[in-house]
């Protein structure tokens, strides 16, 4: 790049990535510096995942990467090459809401809704790891998700209710 003339005339070097998102394979050529959150939102058009901060603190960008809840703003899309990603859009099945989505709705676990996709994706991991969590566990495991509206009370209530719902569903399935 010519510092004297800052108009960048070189086409940026790209790299091929292949990522499975919500069960669908996507192949793209992207700049390595593309953050996974921008890949998901701008390249794939899945805007349920949000950018809420500049500092990897707020968790509004939380998605599931190979089964683990991660902050997609702190991962380059090239690091997710070959990986399996689930976003908030991937939770509902056959038009039926995921128990967490139902529970957040029933328990008024959101106001503006900006933190909510991240909260739900983080909560999904909580219930994966702790199917019958205590309130304290839920609060501690939501350390990575900030909410400016609710004061967390109904969020925690929603997660606890979802735990019950999912446990009932498992019993219903004879598990």
């Amino acid at each position, binding site marked *: 790049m010519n510092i004297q003339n800052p108009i960048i005339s070189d086409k940026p070097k790209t790299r091929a990535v292949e990522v499975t998102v919500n069960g669908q394979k996507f192949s793209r050529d992207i700049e390595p510096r593309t953050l996974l959150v921008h890949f998901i939102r701008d390249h794939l058009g899945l805007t349920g995942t949000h950018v809420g901060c500049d500092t990897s603190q707020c968790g509004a960008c939380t998605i599931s990467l190979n089964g683990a809840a991660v902050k997609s703003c702190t991962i*380059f899309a090239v690091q997710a090459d070959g990986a399996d990603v689930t976003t908030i859009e991937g939770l509902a099945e056959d038009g039926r809401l995921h128990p967490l989505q139902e529970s957040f709705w029933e328990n008024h676990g959101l106001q503006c809704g900006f933190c909510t996709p991240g909260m739900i994706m*983080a909560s999904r991991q909580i219930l994966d790891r702790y199917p019958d969590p205590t309130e304290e566990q839920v609060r501690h495991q939501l*350390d990575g998700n900030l909410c400016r509206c609710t004061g967390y009370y109904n969020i925690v209530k929603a997660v606890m209710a979802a735990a019950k719902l999912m446990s009932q569903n498992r019993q219903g399935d004879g598990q």
Partner: protein
Amino acid sequence: MYPGSFEYHVPASMQEALELMQAYGDDAKVMSGGHSLIPLMKMRLSQPAHLIDMSRMPELKGIRIAEGRIEIGAFTTHRQVETSELLRERLPLLNELAAVIADPQVRNRGTIGGSVCHADPGADFPAAMMALDAEMLCVSKAGLRTVKASEWFLGIMESALAPDEILTTIRLPMQGTDVGHAYLKLPHQASRFSVVGVAALIGRDPDDTCASARIGITGVGTTAFRARQVEAMLVGKPLTEEAILAASRFAAEGCNVQGDLATPIEQKAELCRVMVGRAIAQAAMRSTKTSS
């Protein structure tokens, strides 16, 4: 929010990685979990022209016992440390510490090697590395180098890792099962970094005197440090509430205590003294008497 451009490399072997390190020198950065590096890159405080992603190499992850010592691969995630049965049995201080780093999402990606190389003054692992006299095993084209923890943390964000080196393993001595441990942390509310973090290991004699004391402190100075004066005051004396309180008053001695906008120097020093006292008490409570 948008990092500068870089070339991304995924070496297939350590050999290839070392060649890349040598070829690109100061223009290259190794990426592990990326949860210290990428935030810096997003603020453009770091703009490496080349990123060498070694996080997919299985030989750099894992926890094992080798020659009577614990070895942790540098690319082992905090989640893996947190849930390690081997560590829970042999060195539970580390499970307890890893469980309170940042948040669950960060713990799924962040690694012990990254934490130790990044040398953030508020990071948690450095406190335990100092308390345990850990050794860092580094590899370069020139060969292997072992660096003691006491010589590793040089300053704010500064470790002894050379530009062409890769930290591969952290080696730790095992503690007796009778040694009590505690990791107490006062986290910053939003960032979850340590305002004060104390790693304490206390051994107890049959007559309830202190047999051994190891105290590593983070969040207070420019680097993590050993509270040697506190340790000296404890060893050989009865482990009473009074003795622990008296010793903990010296926790900030010899440390260049760092204040910030939120926490002035004297407040930080007092928080340090209080947290050290509590950590010693908890570790002492968990220690069991050595058999005579």
